[in-house]
């Protein structure tokens, strides 16, 4: 088995901030917008270096999306930044019409996604944003797993022409992907090869999936781990190839099991190759206040939960 080393805990949003700062230096068309959450989104460096290319919108997310769409007319590549909830559910119709349907080159960058937002509680912990964004035709949906990957993805999406939703999070988590790995939109990463079960994980749960795979290996179970950083377009070929070997799958996401990655995988498999699947995600519930670790434990979103789900799904083959 491959060994993955945590090179030190870092928040994914800082990866976004670093990527954006890099773009500020390398791509003059990149502009950034924020709705009164500069610090949380780690946009300070970009702003300090490119004040004329930053738009402080105030607490008006709908206006932010519209302005971003307008800025593309004239050749700008706008990166909008706010919490995931206010990046998606708050402005769904605005994204739908002015960005997705109009095919504008807007990058919607969303921090504090999911339960790991922590103490602010349920009003801020969106667990539906992947589902919201994946339903929009033409929208690319990315959920990165660590600092390095978030930085790479931020840089990569500037070179892709079209609407992108980039989801990342608040807490410091293991940073384990190579700092120099190029980010390829839509290309799943096979992190661990295995034969008994496929784990398809995204975002913060990729690291948990790797821990689960280790735990399973100790029990003699060979788990394949796929980092599905891009939820749309989904790398169906990678998933089908893996399931062809393992004949069962566990999906893992920091998201409601209704509407998210898990259901995309279930649809893909039901269409092509039906197999037993277990769903790691929140079970149709709102979150609550607590520390990220407490919440991930309480709502069953960690390595232990993934391990159990793998054991269960294998029995269902």
């Amino acid at each position, binding site marked *: 088995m491959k060994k993955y080393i945590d090179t030190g805990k870092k928040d994914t949003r800082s990866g976004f901030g670093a990527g954006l700062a890099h773009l500020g230096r390398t791509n003059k068309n990149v*502009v950034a917008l924020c709705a009164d959450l500069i610090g949380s989104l780690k946009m300070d460096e970009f702003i300090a270096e490119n004040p*004329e290319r930053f738009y402080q919108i105030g607490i008006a997310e709908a*206006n932010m999306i519209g302005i971003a769409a307008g800025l593309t007319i004239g*050749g700008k590549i706008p990166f909008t930044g706010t919490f995931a909830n206010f990046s998606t559910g708050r402005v769904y119709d605005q994204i739908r019409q002015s960005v997705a349907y*109009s*095919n504008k080159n807007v990058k919607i960058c969303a921090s504090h996604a999911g339960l790991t937002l922590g103490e602010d509680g349920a009003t801020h912990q969106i667990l539906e944003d992947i589902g919201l964004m994946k339903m929009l035709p033409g929208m690319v949906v990315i959920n990165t797993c660590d600092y390095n990957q978030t930085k790479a993805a931020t840089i990569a999406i500037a070179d892709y022409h079209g609407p992108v939703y980039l989801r990342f999070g608040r807490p410091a988590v293991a940073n384990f992907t190579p700092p120099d790995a190029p980010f390829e939109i839509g290309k799943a990463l096979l992190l661990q090869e295995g034969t008994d079960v496929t784990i398809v994980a995204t975002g913060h749960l990729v690291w948990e999936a790797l821990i689960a795979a280790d735990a399973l290996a100790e029990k003699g179970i060979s788990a394949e781990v796929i980092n599905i950083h891009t939820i749309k377009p989904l790398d169906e070929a990678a998933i089908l190839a893996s399931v062809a070997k393992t004949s069962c799958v566990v999906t893992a996401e920091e998201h409601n099991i209704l509407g998210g990655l898990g259901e995309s995988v279930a649809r893909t498999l039901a269409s092509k190759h039906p197999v037993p699947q277990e769903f790691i995600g929140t079970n149709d519930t709102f979150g609550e206040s607590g520390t990220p670790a407490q919440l991930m434990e309480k709502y069953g979103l960690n390595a232990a939960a993934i391990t159990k789900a793998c054991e269960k799904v294998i029995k269902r083959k």
Partner: protein
Amino acid sequence: MCSPHKGLIFTAVKLPNKNMANITELNQLTTQVRRDILRMVHKVNSGHPGGSLGCAEFFVALYNEVMELKEGFDMDGKEEDLFFLSNGHISPVFYSVLARRGYFPVEELNTFRLINSRLQGHPTTHEGLPGIRMASGSLGQGMSVAIGAAQAKKLNKDAHLVYSLHGDGELQEGQNWEAIMYASAKKVDNLIATIDLNGQQIDGSTDHVLHMGDVAAKFKAFDWEVLSIEKGNDMEAVIEGLQKAKALSGKGKPVCVLMHTVMGNGVDFMMHTHAWHGKAPNDEQLANGLAQNAETLGDY
């Protein structure tokens, strides 16, 4: 009044001669546009004649007298004036004026709201219709978009202006007020937003549905430059108002034009009522409406 015209676009169509554009010619074009509107919505028995007819002078003036337009069409619209229609349901007037300005063949008006058409019920970029830079239809989004485009122009050191149109009922959407607050706070003074103050929306008059009080006072309280066009269906008044707005731009404030129009203007039985907001005339009504607007430049 005769601003330099940056030439025709795409196809040679029946346009008033740009170098001698005069009020009579613009009025003739307006009458033809009214015919187009009526025929378009009649053919598919759907669409929005009321607001379209009321804004005919505005569109004709904007595209044939007021805006500086480049030859051809590209999405970026650099070095030309831009226009965004926020109240997308009045697409018929937009399509007619774009077609007759040369953006696409006038005959294509025949495909309005039909399947596989570029002339969707509400304007869209999705089908590649020249002249359209943003989808609209879901109300309340256009001012934000226009602001973004205006700020891109500033960044690009492009001195051209951005125009937008909004319904009065549409102003009930809160996103407008986010945009209105932002535009003055950030001194977006290359934006001229016109409000179609026809006093009507779907369920009745705006007074009846949701009394909007003094709209001018609201924009002023939000630190905009505000001017009124009292006769929004008088070509000279519209042009004069828009030229005044132009003159007020670039002075640190966004400019709002409150344009008083009559919904359904030019077709007597459609005037002054919300009833024709989104209803097509039947055969008889069409004939009546066309009789009130005799062919000038040739039907499509």
